[in-house]
């Protein structure tokens, strides 16, 4: 059985630097077969964690991107009407002979309705992400991304799936999961998620990483960047985050910036360097000026 330390190492091999809490959460989710609800600001690696996990654990990734108005037809299953229609057309001759045995219309209808289950069988069931991950031949990773964008109804729909790992299809009955997937839900916190859903999950908050971890993340992704610059960069970004910007830079911005700096072969941060590349870390017009001002203040 996998241990916490192994989880951490696996993630590191996959290029994801996890701290103690993240590793523990993943370890527990694997052992307890419970979903993880990850909250945190955008760009700190919530989705990244799921992607990396799917690679390193070799669980096929099934991703469900939530949006306003998503429903069971998009998330669980749907009936393939077109295929049903096509089959009806193709089977017409067969049906004619089958129904010709019945004497009157009533008998024909009864006869046909006894075969109804033929058309509402798994043959015509389109598996949408959640059902697909339940019926996957090996244990999969179900990523339900940005759950906070969906509505309350959808959240309620998830309750059954996530606690019992089963889907109820009225025509077929309950379909249980063959292998319980490792479910990861992410949320940016734009809307409060209901307590009922929270109760079913382990709760993991990923905030901005600590200084050392962020430096390690940069160094892992961009080994060619020298240690001094990486530290200087991260230190600067930490101060930028305290500026009260409209969109504070997160880890993904750190990495973008590191990439830009390594392409430019930068050796050291100067106000000029910051001014030239500020668009990578600040994403609002009002923020740009604040960041450049801070650079002038600190580095001048």
């Amino acid at each position, binding site marked *: 059985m996998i241990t*916490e330390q192994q989880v951490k190492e696996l993630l590191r091999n996959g290029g994801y630097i996890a701290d*103690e*809490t993240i590793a*523990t*959460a993943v*370890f*527990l989710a694997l*052992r*307890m077969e*419970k979903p993880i*609800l990850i*909250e945190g*600001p955008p760009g700190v690696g919530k989705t990244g964690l799921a992607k990396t996990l799917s690679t390193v654990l070799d669980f096929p990734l099934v991703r469900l991107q939530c949006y*306003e108005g998503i429903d069971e037809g998009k998330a669980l299953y749907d009936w393939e*009407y*077109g295929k049903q*229609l096509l089959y009806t057309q193709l089977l017409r001759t067969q049906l004619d002979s089958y129904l010709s045995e019945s004497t009157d219309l009533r008998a024909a209808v009864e006869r046909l309705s006894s075969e109804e289950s033929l058309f509402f069988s798994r043959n015509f069931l389109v598996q949408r992400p959640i059902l697909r991950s339940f019926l996957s031949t090996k244990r999969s990773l179900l990523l339900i991304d940005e759950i906070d964008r969906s509505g309350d109804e959808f959240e309620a729909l998830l309750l059954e799936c996530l606690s019992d790992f089963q889907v109820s299809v009225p025509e077929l009955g309950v379909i249980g999961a063959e292998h319980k997937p490792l479910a990861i839900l992410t949320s940016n*916190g*734009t*809307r*409060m998620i209901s*307590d009922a859903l*929270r*109760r079913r*999950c*382990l*709760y*993991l*908050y990923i905030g901005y990483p600590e200084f050392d971890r962020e430096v390690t993340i940069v160094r892992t992704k961009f080994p060619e960047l020298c240690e001094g610059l990486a530290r200087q960069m991260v230190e600067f970004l930490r101060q930028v985050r305290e500026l*009260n*910007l*409209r969109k*504070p830079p997160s880890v993904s911005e750190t990495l973008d910036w590191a990439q830009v700096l390594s392409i430019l072969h930068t050796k050291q941060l100067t106000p000029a360097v910051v001014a030239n590349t500020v668009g990578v870390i600040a994403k609002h017009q009002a923020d740009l000026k604040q960041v450049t001002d801070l650079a002038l203040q600190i580095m001048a």
Partner: protein
Amino acid sequence: MERIITRFVTALRERGVRVSPGESLDAVQALAFGGLSGRDSVRALLKLTLVKNVNDMPAFDEVFDWFFSRSQCNPLDIDPGEFLSAMIHIVEGEQLKAEEYRTREKDDPLLIVDEEATAEDLENLLGLEESDDDGAGAEIMVQLDGFRGKMAAPEPSDYYLKSPPTVAFSQGANKGRVVPFTPEELADMQEVVSRMLVRIRKDVQRMKEMENRGKLHIIRTIQKNYRHGMVPFLLSLRRKRKEKPRLVVLCDVSYSVSHATRFMLLLLHTLQNRLMHVRSFIFNKELAEITPMLRNMPVNCLLETIDKGDIVNLDDNSDYGNVFKSFKERHLENMRGKPAIIIIGDGRNNYNEANDWALEAIREKAGYLLWLTPEERDIWQRGDCQLDLYGSYCDRVETARDVDELSRLVEDLFHTLFDHNDTRAWQHRRQERKVEEPQDYRTYYTRHSGAQPAFDPDVRRQW
């Protein structure tokens, strides 16, 4: 093991963190899996299973440190040195006060008569006895002829802030003026707002059913059924575009309404969480936008920040005129569509310029203007309160002091907004309203003197 967890969960619940029995079972299971290898790992395991909200995390850490610490002898968590110095300051402060009292008693008469007072003023003073106004002394003085508007507004007293006990306590115990929200309060508010939103959503749905949604969208139906040989097997129906009301909230955070500020901020925060298009501003003398902060910060932190005066200077007097002016100049043009504007405050302008033309301009731009005040209606006429003047520009002026009153008001507001957005569907409802409204308004704004309101209700647009 189970006993310890149960006791720990009880401690958490006492601190206001909501933990369900299922979660404590999870915690026990998690500990069994994860082992008890170290303090940090146990903390992580318990945190993952017991805490389901970011805002509860500090509380959890606190309880954890306290519960699993070796010395549990100092429950109040006060440094003895700090406590002693605070006590000394208090005693000193008492002495100061006593001294001041003695000197005053000796030198000054209790009542100081203004040398410049004229006979007319004295006559006015005599007249006061007969008036049935039971207001405070300072207010009566202001109401005397010729004084209104000329006298400088009283500044917030420095004495209280700088007195040794205050300073000692504010540093030693490190407590702000405003007590942070308890988790129960937050949960209550969340619940009320959720209930409210469910009700509103239902109404909106019913309304949508009445309009022409559900008609066949012919082009899209044909497109959709292309592969079935144009047999309309899958139907595509018309849907109305989803419209979310835009809301702008201006919230007064000055001393005069500080008792209501917490509650108002909580409302702002909750609204912000649940509705997409909200822009929030706070003001005292200056106006500041806090929309991004509300989105990113737990409400308690925000409260602390505001309380420290980091966003707007709290030592000034509130100045509604200035605020309306700067809101008009800086933000009004940037507002998209016709947002509903809610102003929360007591309308006490401290005898500054009223600038009601700015409010008029705001009202022109706004789809709906609602004023919420924490003060009772019968004290609106007193002192520097400009609510009568400002109120004449608003669609509604309401008193709101607790969550229930407020939820009712906001619900009303939403119905009004949707009413405005969908003109056809609610026509019959609106007609009913038209009949009763004018009458309603007159009684609403009739002042004590019996003067008619300064605006004509018939000219106003109906919302």
